[in-house]
């Protein structure tokens, strides 16, 4: 060691401690410090002072993530298992694997959404089918009602016909009413018992009436007095019949007539005559 170098290094110890030397000067000082205890002591003292200057800097706080990242790097360097390094927290893991987490969250929602849409569509279809079935049931009920009415009417017709046959077989007096009215299709009979005070009028091919009209029977006396003898309607086949009752024998009247009257009947004939027969 020469005094020149030593003196030169002594001059450089302060800038060396401050880090203000060029590389070649720094190398020279470090080489000298290996050999010179005096310069090493000065260098250590200068270093302690200088780095106390560094300690005056504490205005700024590092972000919390910095510590987390530091230990994550240490985990990588140390070769620690991923499960242990995951203890650093869920949020960084989510940030790193955000697409995987997003997919994991969104995919089930999409699937569930699709299932809900499918089920809603099925519900709509079932409701639609139910509505259609309700209409079919309603139609069938209407048809059933009509059929029931028809059966009832047919049944009534048969009953009437049986009654008419019974009267025909037992009547003491029978009057054919064909050609007794404007309608050539009209046919039927007037039956009376032996006393003539009870009879039955059975008519075929009567024209259908509106629901507010009916047929009314009149008995006309020789003196012109007109007495109502009851009302009836026809069935779907155009057949109508009525049992007649009178205080005096029916054939004691001059004639019988049937008119169309408004329901429930009239005091006197007001409508058109369908037919009339003289006794």
């Amino acid at each position, binding site marked *: 060691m020469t005094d020149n170098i030593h003196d030169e290094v002594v*001059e*450089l*110890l*302060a*800038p060396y*401690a*401050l*880090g*203000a*030397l*060029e590389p070649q000067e720094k190398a020279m000082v470090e080489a000298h410090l290996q050999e010179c205890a005096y310069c090493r002591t000065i260098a*250590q*003292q*200068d*270093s*302690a*002072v*200088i*780095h*106390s*200057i*560094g*300690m*005056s*800097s*504490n*205005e*700024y*706080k*590092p*972000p919390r993530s*910095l*510590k987390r*990242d*530091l*230990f994550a*790097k*240490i985990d990588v*360097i*140390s070769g620690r298992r991923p499960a242990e390094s995951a203890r650093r927290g869920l949020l960084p893991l989510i940030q790193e694997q955000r697409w995987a987490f997003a997919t994991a969250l969104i995919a089930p929602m999409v699937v569930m959404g699709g299932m809900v849409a499918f089920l809603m569509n099925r519900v709509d279809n079932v409701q639609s089918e139910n509505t259609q079935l309700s209409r079919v049931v309603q139609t069938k009920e209407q048809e059933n009602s009509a059929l029931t009415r028809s059966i009832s009417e047919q049944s009534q017709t048969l009953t009437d016909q049986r009654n008419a046959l019974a009267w025909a077989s037992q009547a003491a007096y029978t009057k054919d009413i064909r050609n007794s009215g404007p309608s050539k299709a009209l046919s039927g009979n007037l039956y009376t018992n032996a006393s003539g005070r009870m009879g039955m009028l059975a008519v075929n091919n009567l024209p259908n009436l509106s629901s507010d009209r009916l047929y009314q029977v009149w008995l006309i006396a020789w003196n012109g007095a007109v007495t109502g003898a009851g009302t009836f309607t026809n069935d779907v086949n155009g057949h109508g019949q009525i049992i007649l009752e009178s205080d005096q024998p029916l054939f004691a009247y001059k004639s019988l007539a049937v008119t169309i009257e408004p329901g429930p009947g009239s005091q006197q004939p007001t409508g058109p005559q369908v037919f009339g027969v003289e006794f």
Partner: protein
Amino acid sequence: MDYQTLSDEQLVDLVNQSDRRALSVLYDRYSRVVFSLGIKMLGSKEAAEEITQDAFLKLWLGAGSYQSGKGKFSSWLLSITHNRAIDEIRKRKRTANNSSCDDPVLQDTLADPGNEMADDLISKVQGETVAEALEKLPTLQRDAIKLAYFKGLTQTEISEQLGAPLGTIKTRMRLGLRKLRSILVEINEEVQTV
């Protein structure tokens, strides 16, 4: 074992045995100082974060190289930080403005003075002591020291910037450090007598 009560040297021994908790305590004690120094020297939050991480990684990997007989741990750690920052400065060939607090990036990192742990208070007091001592230096000596320490300029660059001979700069640095040391000793003695 309460790690918070251990000395820096004891913690470094534990770090040398790959004790993560010991490193964590040292980080909590010195990360603010290291980070602040980084910002002052490099002028950027990102760069300061990088060298802070580098400093503590170096501690983790090279704790065995610290020798307590050669100086305080804080000096050793700040030396690592300072050298790293100077390398960065010279690598990027730019000057850092260490006095600007108008930088919006830096505003976010300013420490909250109302929310400090005990260790932060101690280093804050130490920091204030050194800052006070620095302000007591003659201007020329203080400028030479700050340009070298916080700006990472070489003595040649400082000589050119200040327009003073190289020899004059060396002298200012030497005398400034000596003066600074005696001021710090004087302040410490005043504290001890109080």
